[in-house]
């Protein structure tokens, strides 16, 4: 009675075989993404089957195994965990594995045949609406002078023999149709995705004043130099948008990296993905989605709003740079009013102006406004340290309360501390300026002056390992 006689092994082997078979039969079934998302269920299934077997043996009175999972079994489980976690990271944009062709290695059957798409061209008005219908592949759209739309590119078709590939190529022509002021580019890949995956990589040139609406999957989109609007939907690829005079609306799912720069109109970003970078946007920005990687905002001259299930952020302008990862928010030169409500994030704001309202469930908050005059600030954290460095000559009225922790006054005589219950309160002010309120449920508060050198080092921001008090 040991792991050898369990049914789990063979059953899981059959299931894995079935998965790969499903992928071979219908390559539209995105196997790598499926493995990357659902691999932990191998372990759950394995444990579940073993559990069932042991329960049955128990009820039947048969002998119970002493070691249902052998040492080799645990080793296999550890390998699965490591490999599974790696597939999660392998989908990040710049992971070297991606470039090493592992992604293609999964589709080991069949060969890839390359076909050039005969150039298509149509004359259009100066500001057409260009629609790129949903397809598998990448597209590069550029705005040029003139009034023609040109489509070039090539197709990659994977099949077992050249005849099938030729047939698939013939059956999926790229078409360019003009309907009034609307230009529609179609790849007609749907019918053939079943057994010969067709991938089209297009290069499209449109008049500068065009507006573009595109939808794609598994490919990278690069749209630049337009004065119209852009509406882009992509699954599992990256998006680069640059120099757009109109508004931009993006919806990505499992996207790699989304990078937008030089957008003059309003921006809306929805969906989920890894990294998101916005640089030089002159319109209001609204981001709603889960970005597991890094969210980077740089020079946004209009209000920006971020809302997802653990963070809500609003600022009037981002003059410097703001970087938000899961667990850390670092921003330079935000212009308020700034509102931030988040769960577990360490917040570091340097050089902000305007009013500030920060509410953190658990995380440290470090504030260093640099410009005078100061505006009102309210900082609440349920668990975490608060550190405020005030510039010289600042005028303010301060109330700080640490319910279970210390308050360190490194500012000077203008502030007075006294204990209140189990906590400590710090109060005072200079010049009767705007109200600054700092509250923490559990943690320390430090208030210091920017020109006073402090001997202590920065408070530890490694929450996970900082078990012991200083």
């Amino acid at each position, binding site marked *: 009675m040991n792991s050898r006689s369990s049914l789990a092994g063979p059953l899981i082997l059959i299931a894995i075989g079935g998965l790969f078979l499903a992928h071979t039969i219908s390559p539209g079934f995105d196997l790598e993404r499926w493995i990357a998302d659902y691999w932990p269920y191998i372990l759950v299934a394995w*444990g579940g089957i073993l559990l069932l077997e*042991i329960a049955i043996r128990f009820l039947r009175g048969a002998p119970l195994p002493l070691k*249902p999972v052998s040492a080799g079994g645990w080793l296999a489980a550890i390998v699965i965990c490591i490999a599974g976690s790696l597939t999660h990271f392998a989908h990040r944009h710049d992971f070297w594995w991606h470039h090493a062709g592992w992604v293609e290695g999964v589709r080991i059957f069949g060969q890839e045949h390359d076909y050039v798409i005969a150039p298509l061209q149509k004359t259009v008005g100066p500001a057409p609406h260009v629609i790129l219908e949903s397809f598998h592949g990448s597209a590069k759209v550029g705005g040029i002078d003139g009034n023609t739309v040109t489509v070039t590119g090539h197709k990659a078709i994977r099949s077992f023999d050249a005849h099938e590939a030729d047939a698939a190529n013939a059956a999926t022509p790229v078409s360019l149709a003009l309907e009034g002021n609307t230009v529609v580019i179609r790849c007609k890949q749907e019918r053939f995705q079943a057994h010969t995956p067709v991938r089209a990589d297009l290069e499209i040139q449109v008049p500068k004043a065009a507006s573009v609406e595109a939808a794609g999957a598994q490919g990278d989109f690069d749209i630049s130099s337009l004065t119209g609007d852009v509406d882009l939907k992509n699954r599992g690829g990256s998006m680069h948008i640059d120099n757009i005079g109109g508004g931009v609306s993006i919806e990505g799912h499992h996207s790699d990296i989304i990078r937008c720069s030089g957008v003059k109109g309003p921006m809306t970003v929805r969906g989920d993905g890894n990294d998101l970078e916005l640089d030089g946007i002159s319109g209001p920005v609204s981001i709603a989605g889960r970005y597991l990687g890094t969210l980077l905002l740089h020079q946004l001259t209009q209000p920006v709003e971020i809302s997802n299930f653990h963070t809500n952020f609003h600022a009037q302008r981002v003059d410097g740079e703001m970087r938000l990862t899961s667990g850390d928010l670092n921003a330079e030169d935000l212009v308020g009013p700034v509102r931030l409500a988040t769960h577990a994030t360490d917040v570091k704001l340097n050089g902000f102006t305007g009013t500030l309202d920060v509410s953190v469930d658990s995380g440290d908050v470090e504030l260093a406004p640099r410009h005078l005059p100061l505006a009102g600030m309210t900082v609440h954290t349920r668990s975490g340290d608060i550190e405020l460095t005030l510039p010289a000559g600042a005028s303010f009225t301060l109330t700080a309360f640490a319910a279970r922790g210390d308050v360190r006054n490194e500012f000077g005589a203008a502030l007075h501390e006294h204990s209140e219950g189990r906590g400590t309160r710090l109060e005072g002010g200079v010049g009767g300026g705007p109200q600054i309120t700092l509250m923490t449920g559990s943690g320390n508060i430090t208030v210091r002056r920017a020109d006073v050198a402090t001997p202590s080092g920065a408070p530890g921001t490694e929450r996970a390992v900082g078990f012991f008090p200083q």
Partner: protein
Amino acid sequence: MTTRAALFVRAIRDPILLILIGVLFAVQQAGILPVSRTWPLLLIVIGFLKLIERLAAPRPSYPNPNWGAQSR
């Protein structure tokens, strides 16, 4: 409780741990909580199962026949 029940609890410890590890990683994949925050559940479940096992059939301890003997 019988020793057979205790043997059962010990036998299902491995599968339950496998399932729990799978669930923790699945929760991480779904973006809810990473494993680095949920791993103590493993300790709790191991301790809990050991506890039940111990309660089901406590192991007797044996006296050392040499306690109290003269040492040289």
